[in-house]
């Protein structure tokens, strides 16, 4: 067997491990094992690449490659090990961005490398697409990172004529691609690079913090596609397979997330949702009263319950209350009460974020219910405890066609016999919409910091 065939076989092995890893994610039991298999496959591919011949020579600059890898590892490992789970969306955004940047650099360098050989038009097209998509992913992820890290405002950044401006930038990029295809000019390539960079920034600026879960999965998909484009240029099936897998996963997740918000993808990307905070339904707001209670009141309620469903939102993580919440659940279970968690798909700052935050607090994954399952459990629940969530339990999404979140599937907390709403204040949620559930006669509001209130509740339940 020739050296090249052996390396290609090893690449095939790696591509297979990636598919195995994604398959493993079908259940929490096998997921970790799958990830380790993929990591091993990746290692095999990297080691095999050191023995590859390019342009008829063994790899040059092996020491440089090792040095660059060393630098990468030194930065990546501590960052990945010690970052807080609440900061996971930022971290995924930044790791995604650097991947897009790398794909873009690979395409650019390949263009510089092969341009003297008069490459075919389709090869140049692959290069240009790789540069465009990779760079948009890079700069877009950087802005998403800045928004999530609160280096800049999480609200949509808008200005008059923004959409026209963005459309112009996009059109200019496409026009430039055509020009480069015709002329083969490498000077224009650098202009395309700059334009793609601006496009990524301009694309992400008007997207508000609440829509970031959709954005991150879309950018993830972009990087995957950029990698697949590089795979075409370099003639590597491994890159095509891996890139396409990620591209497909990102697009699928993007669609799932937009569906979970009851909006179309284009609405999420282009409507600057949440830029005007208006209290819709404000007319009815005055004169309506809410019922507020103390942790002791809730303790009494819980002591008569046999089934409790907890509906956590991102506010819980902001208050760092996940561990106390789990403690409360354990106390309730010790009294023979059935406790489940109802997780909305967009709870948190990225798809499935809330599950990770609860898993970190040692909540067993069997207790984490997806939305549909949760809604059927709620019909027989005695108490629903809403903590740190707001828009995801807002009945306006089902019964007020004028509401901006109308059409979003929600967790129907009001199906339970009683609703306990832990809330910092009467301030509306992320989407800036008043919540009908607060005024429901079934609802008891407990004001205060989520963590403090939960701590008091634990004490009350313990004592009872």
């Amino acid at each position: 067997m020739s050296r090249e065939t052996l390396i290609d076989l090893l690449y095939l092995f790696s591509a297979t491990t990636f598919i195995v890893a994604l398959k493993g994610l079908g259940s929490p039991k096998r997921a970790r094992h799958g990830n380790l298999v993929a990591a091993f496959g990746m290692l095999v591919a990297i080691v095999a690449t050191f023995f590859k011949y390019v342009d008829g020579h063994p790899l040059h600059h092996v020491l440089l490659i090792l040095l660059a890898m060393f630098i990468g590892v030194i930065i990546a490992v501590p960052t990945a090990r010690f970052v807080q789970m609440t900061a996971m969306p930022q971290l995924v955004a930044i790791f995604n961005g650097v991947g897009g940047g790398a794909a873009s650099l690979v395409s650019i360098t390949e263009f510089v490398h092969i341009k003297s050989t008069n490459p075919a038009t389709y090869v140049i097209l692959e290069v240009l697409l790789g540069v465009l998509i990779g760079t948009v992913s890079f700069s877009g992820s950087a802005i998403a990172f800045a928004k999530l890290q609160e280096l800049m405002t999480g609200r949509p950044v808008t200005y008059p004529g923004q959409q026209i401006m963005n459309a112009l930038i996009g059109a200019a990029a496409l026009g430039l691609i055509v020009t480069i295809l015709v002329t083969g000019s490498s000077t224009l390539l650098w202009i395309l690079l700059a334009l793609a960079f601006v496009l990524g920034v301009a694309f992400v600026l008007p997207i508000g913090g609440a829509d970031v879960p959709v954005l991150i999965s879309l950018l993830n998909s972009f990087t995957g596609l950029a990698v697949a484009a590089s795979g075409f240029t370099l003639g590597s099936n491994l890159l095509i397979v891996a890139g396409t897998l990620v591209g497909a996963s990102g697009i699928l997740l993007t669609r799932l997330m937009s569906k979970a918000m009851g909006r179309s993808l284009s609405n999420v990307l282009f409507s600057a949702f949440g830029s005007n905070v208006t209290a819709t339904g404000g007319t009815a707001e005055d004169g309506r009263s809410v019922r507020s209670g103390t942790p002791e009141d809730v303790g009494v309620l819980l002591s008569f319950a046999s089934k409790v469903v907890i509906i956590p939102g991102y506010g819980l993580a902001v208050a760092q209350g996940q561990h106390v919440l789990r403690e409360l659940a354990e106390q309730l279970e010790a009294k023979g009460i059935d406790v489940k968690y109802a997780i909305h798909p967009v709870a948190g700052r990225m798809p499935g974020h809330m599950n990770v935050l609860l898993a970190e607090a040692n909540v067993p994954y069997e207790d984490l219910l997806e939305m549909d399952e949760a809604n059927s459990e709620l019909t027989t629940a005695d108490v629903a405890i809403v903590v740190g969530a707001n828009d995801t339990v807002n009945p306006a999404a089902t019964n007020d066609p004028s509401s901006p979140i109308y059409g979003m599937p929600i967790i129907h907390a009001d199906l339970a016999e009683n609703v306990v709403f832990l809330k910092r204040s009467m301030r509306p949620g992320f989407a800036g919409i008043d919540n009908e559930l607060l005024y429901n006669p079934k609802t008891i509001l407990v004001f205060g910091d989520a963590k403090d209130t939960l701590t008091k509740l634990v004490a009350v339940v313990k004592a009872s």
Partner: protein
Amino acid sequence: MSNVLLQYATVLILTAFVGTEIIAKVPSILHTPLMSGSNAIHGVILVGSMLILGSATTNLEEVLGFLAVILATLNVVGGFVVTDRMLEMFKPRQPKAPSKPDEGPQ
């Protein structure tokens, strides 16, 4: 259009379908690890970056390739490490071990 291009396009199309099928089966509870895991997988661009730097003939190519290898390594190593860290936390219900030492909040 060359045969090679057609062969790559075949791989692309088939993988897109396989990927969609597999990923549709991932439960929403694991969507965050799915994102960071697939994130790590596109770190395979490291292989491309190595080839680019390994065949660099000019200073410009060397600089770009060097940067690409650093960025791709960040992507692949960071992605796998953070995914492993997350998946490690997903645990099934423990058989009731009374008064297990509690780490407390935080």
